[in-house]
């Protein structure tokens, strides 16, 4: 080959590689880059150990004895996965029904906007995001409703990321983020006009405990909506395969025991809420929420190679490969959960704190 052809071939290959890795790769343009993957607030040399500890703590999610340690391990989980989620999935750490003709980003936004529409708040209202992650939903909801959103998350690294994103989006006058535990929230009672939680309360060992806190901080008459991760009426606890799928989901997502769909309304009523509406948003005519996970297979392999190389070069912390693989295996369990219909991440419950409320 003469040198011109060689040069052109080389340039074409380099361009193709760049496109495959850097353009096709990250979930968002100018979002998190693979070279910036970290273990959150965990220093690079401790990532491998933290992962090993996490993996053994959640070995039998429904039989965790030291439930008071769960918040610490949820915090560890999010230190390990936040960067990978932002890189590979986006700023909204939750699922949405797919919508024909709309991108994942748009479908996600619609799902988030629906949540705030359900709690019927006005511009200038103060609403609480329970388990706000890095604030993807918060930003969509603040711009859609013009309400003042306060987010709480147990993970300090996520608070940093959320504030950064809020500032970049020009929403830091409407959005605020506090580092705290939603089981013991640092807000006085009756201080919010509304509240929502998107796929976050699943991390609480007892649902009543987080619901009771939300009840306490809401004003009488205010509404709360939650998208819950639950097993459906198709789930059979005696079926070995069903049990395997659910345990796989619990272990890989820091869940101390997935609840059944019937447990949700029960917990809400127990703490004093009136249940206004309940619906599994994944049921038809909604399009599947798990197709996004399935389409990620090629992406997984590319990312796996990338993360392995970066780890080898010492750019990504040791242990990142294990975390990434855990998430891939978990994605497989989630997909199976969706396809069999035994699991849904979007059981919606809309609750009201009664006007003349007595705390339970």
């Amino acid at each position, binding site marked *: 080959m003469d040198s011109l052809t060689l040069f052109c071939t080389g340039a074409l290959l380099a361009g193709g590689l760049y496109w495959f890795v850097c353009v096709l790769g990250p979930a968002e343009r100018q979002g998190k880059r693979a070279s910036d993957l970290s273990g959150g607030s965990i220093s690079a040399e401790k990532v491998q150990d933290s992962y090993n500890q996490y993996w053994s703590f959640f070995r039998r999610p429904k039989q965790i004895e030291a439930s*008071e340690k769960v918040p610490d391990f949820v915090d560890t989980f999010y230190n390990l996965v936040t960067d990978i989620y932002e890189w590979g999935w986006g700023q909204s750490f939750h699922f949405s029904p797919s919508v024909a003709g709309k991108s994942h980003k748009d479908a996600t936004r619609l799902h988030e906007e629906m949540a705030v529409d359900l709690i019927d708040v006005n*511009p*200038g209202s*103060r609403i609480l995001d329970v388990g706000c992650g890095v604030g993807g939903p918060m930003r969509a909801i603040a711009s859609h409703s013009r309400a*003042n959103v*306060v987010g709480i998350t*147990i993970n*300090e690294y996520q*608070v*940093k990321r959320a*504030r950064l994103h809020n500032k970049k989006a020009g929403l830091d*006058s409407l959005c*605020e*983020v*506090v*580092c*705290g*535990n939603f089981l*013991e*929230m*640092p*807000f*006085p009672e009756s*201080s919010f006009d509304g509240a929502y939680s998107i796929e976050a309360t699943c991390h609480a060992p007892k649902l009543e405990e987080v619901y009771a806190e939300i009840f306490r901080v809401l004003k009488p008459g205010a509404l709360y909506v939650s998208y819950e991760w639950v097993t459906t009426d198709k789930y059979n606890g005696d079926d070995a395969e069903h049990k395997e799928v659910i345990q796989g989901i619990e272990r890989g997502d820091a869940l101390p025991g997935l609840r059944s769909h019937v447990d949700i309304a029960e917990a809400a009523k127990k703490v004093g809420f009136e249940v206004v509406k309940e619906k599994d948003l994944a049921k038809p005519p909604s399009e599947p929420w798990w197709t996004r996970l399935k389409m990620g297979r090629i992406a997984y392999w590319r990312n796996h190679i990338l993360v392995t190389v970066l780890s080898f070069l010492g750019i990504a912390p040791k242990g990142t490969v294990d975390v990434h693989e855990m998430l891939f295996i978990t994605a497989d369990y989630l997909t199976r959960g969706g396809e069999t219909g035994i699991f849904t991440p979007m059981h919606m419950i809309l609750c009201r704190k009664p006007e003349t409320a007595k705390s339970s």
Partner: protein
Amino acid sequence: MRLLTHNMLSSNIKGVTNGFPLRIEAEKVVEKQVDLNIDFLKNMFPKIEWKALVSASRTMGYAELPEEVEPSKLDSEEFLRKFHHALLELHLEEGALVCPETGRRFPVSKGIPNMLLHEDEV
């Protein structure tokens, strides 16, 4: 952390009956410019604990807020600008929020208040 946020935070340590307002220890205060939004301010006003805002802004070095506010003041642009400045433009970057009853310090670092309780405080 803006004073809008401070105005809604309280100490929830076990046994504490009055955890609001948290006292501010200001080590680093930063001013950040925010566009004035009169509707927002008028809407927010009834939800704000006024005395807490006045003393918090004083601790942060701003003493322009009046102790008492008659309703007619809400039509005064001069008052609204002061309210706006205290509520949204003063940021506590480094310091602490202190429980008024127990003295326990909740650190504020890089603008983030860490309100996580220790095991024995729950």
